[in-house]
């Protein structure tokens, strides 16, 4: 699984961190999403996909 984020779209709502804190974080200065793990193990698929669905700005893409 690969995760791609679009920093320009991110509005810093933190939904991704709530869904999958092992994979997403937010930068301290501006709250923009930080990808901690761009290729998370398959076992994290559910929370990562949940993060993508929750993200209000559609800034997260999950590739197979």
């Amino acid at each position: 699984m690969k995760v791609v984020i679009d920093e320009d779209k991110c509005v810093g709502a933190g939904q991704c961190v709530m869904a999958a804190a092992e994979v997403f974080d937010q930068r301290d200065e501006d709250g923009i999403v930080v990808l901690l793990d761009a290729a998370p193990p398959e076992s994290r698929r559910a929370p990562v996909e949940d993060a993508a669905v929750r993200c209000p700005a559609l800034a997260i893409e999950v590739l197979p």
Partner: protein
Amino acid sequence: MTGNQPTTSTRHTPGTQPMGRTCPFSPPEGYRTLREEDPITPVTFPDGAKGWVVSRYADVRTVLADPRFGANRRRVRPGDAPDAPLAPPPPGMFIMMDGPEHTRFRRLLTGQFTVRRMQKLAPAVEQIVADQLEAMAGAEGPVDLLQAFALPIPSLVICELLGVPYEDRAEFQENSSMVLRLEASRDEVMQAQSAMNEYIHQLAVAKRAHPTDDILSGLVQSEQLTDEELAGVGSLLLLAGHETTANMIALGTMCLLENPEQLAALRSDPALMDGAVEELLRYLTIIQYGLRRVALEDVELDGHRIEAGATVLASLSSGNRDATQFPDSPDALDIHRPYRTHLAFGHGVHQCIGQQLARVEMKAALSALFDRFPTLRLAVPADQVPMRDDMLIYGVHELPVTW
């Protein structure tokens, strides 16, 4: 002050926005009809504006995430001319801005409200909650939970975060409540708004000379905003931080008291609190009249042609009762409900910037309240609690409780 408005009919009148609740915790019944029969429906709004009401979960999300719908919604109140030209939003009012302009303001603030920062704040919030409960415990007889507990918590927290003296609250609480009053005239709202702006402006000037460790001082020092923009942003945060969370705490308490088996389950297993907060947010959705957007171009939405300039009302409360997204009795409060993304904080680029703070406050407030007062109960029958049908943000005007 108006209470529950009894409705004669639960059916929806075609061509109008559903109004009038039959249940104090549920959106107007007419939304159910709309969702099932006419989910994207043309309406004339009470102020005479022509547009659309969108009532299904999926469509609400689509509208709020689509940049072809702009956030500069004119005509939000009676008295705004239906054909008023699209005026630029007031300085700093970034909830009414689109595109790069909106991003510029949002980015200045997002770092202040990250998940991590808000979690770090939790102990301070818990202390504030404990202090309020202590003060409440000393009171004799029934107290108004809104004034004694639910309102002071978010007020103290947002004042602390922004760097606004809490002692000044009487004035800005009155002004912020005026801004949210449905029946207020345009002049009254503008007057209240400019009083808030003026107040923040004065504060900002003081902070320029003597910066402290708070968001306003940070914004002043960043030197990225004009004085007017700073006043606009500051009063927006102050306003947004107040009545929303206060009403979620008070209405959430009332709702749990009226659903005793849910409350009992929650009290027996504090680990349910996270889910309970999300479920209360979904179930109660206090942005009761939805979010307004304006079509910036002609948009085709599920077979409907929405013309440029039309107003589109995305009903958050209706979307949050949509059975396709929330199977298993969407009209019941169920704190065990598996998490599904709800719309209580909106969706799209304007989704609530303070949502993590709201969660921290709700959790701290609700757990400590029921711990401290295990026998808490309403001091009047539930149907005599004055509800906020008349405000943009739903909730209670007061909540008499005893224990």
